[in-house]
């Protein structure tokens, strides 16, 4: 148990912030939910730690758990009703760059959870179509179409200037 804790602790320290970023995108831009998601993922990884260490697939396993947990979470209705914030928002002039972030966040949040997961895995985690299909348990064709739809959706929401007109069509 002590070995498990030590090894797992090292993994947690090295990967938690990276995982949180991915989780943030998967959640559609909510740091609190992202941290919850990472904690859930890490807890599950802890349970299966010896096996996934032996298989040498910790990152792939954690991605899979995180994506599935994010999609499960997105199905819960209460998530759509309220979002948790640490401080009450103040209506001040946002600093430069924040508007961009808010726009992208809003656009991401409007994507369906499945499409968002595909876009994040494909373009943020740099996974191939095959790897994304394995992580999500879907066919490659589905990944291509979801990716294409997701990008088109983002393009529409962001005013098309930010993204080129290409995707996983092939």
């Amino acid at each position, binding site marked *: 148990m002590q070995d498990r804790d030590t090894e797992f602790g090292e993994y947690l320290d090295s990967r938690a912030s990276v995982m949180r970023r991915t989780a943030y995108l998967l959640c559609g831009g909510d740091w609190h939910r992202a941290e919850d998601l990472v904690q859930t993922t890490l*807890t599950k990884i802890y349970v299966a730690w010896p096996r996934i260490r032996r298989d040498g697939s910790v990152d792939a396993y954690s991605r899979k758990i995180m994506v599935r947990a994010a999609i499960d979470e997105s199905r819960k209705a209460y998530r759509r009703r309220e979002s948790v914030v640490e401080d009450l928002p103040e209506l001040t002039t946002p600093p430069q760059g924040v508007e961009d*972030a808010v726009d992208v*966040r809003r656009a991401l949040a409007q994507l369906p959870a499945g499409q968002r997961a595909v876009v994040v895995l494909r373009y943020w985690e*740099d996974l191939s179509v095959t790897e994304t299909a394995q992580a999500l348990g879907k066919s490659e064709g589905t990944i291509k179409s979801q990716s294409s739809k997701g990008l088109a959706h983002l393009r529409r929401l962001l005013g098309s200037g930010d993204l080129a007109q290409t995707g996983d069509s092939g």
Partner: protein
Amino acid sequence: MTDDVKQLLGRAFGDEPPLRIDRDEVLQQGRKRLRRRRFFEAGSVIAAVVVAAVGAAALTNLAGSEPERMPPAATSAQPAPNEGLSLPLPPVSTSPPAEPPPSVSLGGLPIESGADMSKQLTDVLYSSDIVAMDEVEVLPGQSGGLPAFQLYGEQYVYEADVVRSDVRGLLRVTVDYVPGQVADCGMIPAPYTGCEEWDKSSPQAFLARYEGSDGERRTYVTTVLERGIRVSATATNTTDRDRAAGTPSSAKIPPVLVRGAGAGVAGTVLPVVRAGWPGRQHDGQPGRAVVGHRLVAVDPGVAAGAFAGPARQSSGGRGADGGGQYSAGPAGQPCRGPGPDGVAAACGRRTATPTPPRHEAEPGREGTTVGGEETPQQDETGPPRLARRLTQGWTSRARTFSNRSGGTADSSIERSTA
């Protein structure tokens, strides 16, 4: 393109707050989850032991004690005197009464020969240390003080709310006859989150778990022992009373599975039970068939004809294919002389059907046996209907559930590879 999108996604972060994931908290949660998982797995073995122990009792009863108390089956020379259908039956050669069998002891679980089947099953269950008499309650709406095995149709059913100081839950054990079938995951009623082969030795036992969003945890184990005796056990963490009242479960795992999770009950009872299986202990006994709650000893070669012939089918017996086809009306029943309680058994047309337990006819409920979901009085002349809606990803191959006790023309289910 990829870089463009990545850059765009990177813009979503804005001011990134400091990481607030507590390492100790994660470790603590992980340990807790791990403990719960190990506990649950250990408890599943206990449920399986219930199956094995009760199954052994059923088999011992079948193989050893029945000829002593049961008179021979009626033959065509003894027509039913009342309004029941009087059909010619193939001759049945009854076996001579066997010598009084010795009492069998299975690891401290005494099985008295000659005792009533329900009583024996109940005694074995209470002797098994799975549940104690002072912690079980009859289900709401049922009569009697102490829960016991009862005969419903052709199935022995035990149902009880198990109430302990800290945990509560339901235990359900069923014993029935499914000739020609082998245990598999297809026998386990949906829904369940996973099914696995628990015991690879013969006879195989299959174990399924269900974890509901409302906190319900359920473990289901089933096996088909030699000579077609199916024994199934379900343990849940929600009592029938709590379910009816809408009270959420406070227990994390079924209470039946808590006791003995680390006590090694499996290690002590199971080998003894295995040694008691009739394949080794009772070789050479005549073949047997189950008709209602009566166990009749017949010559093996005649059994199929006597209980599965076309003439019987018209009076409500099993079909010629042995698949357990039932007619729409109550089954005719030949005279059999006095029963174990000394009262003459009813002859001819059966006028009343025992009320099945409440869970038995409800699809998707725990403990519902395969084929048990449908209406028992289904007209066999009508088109067969699918008894249970299959969950996504499963396909049915000629599923025809036509009887109550799980006998099917072909109930095999295969996992869709699509």
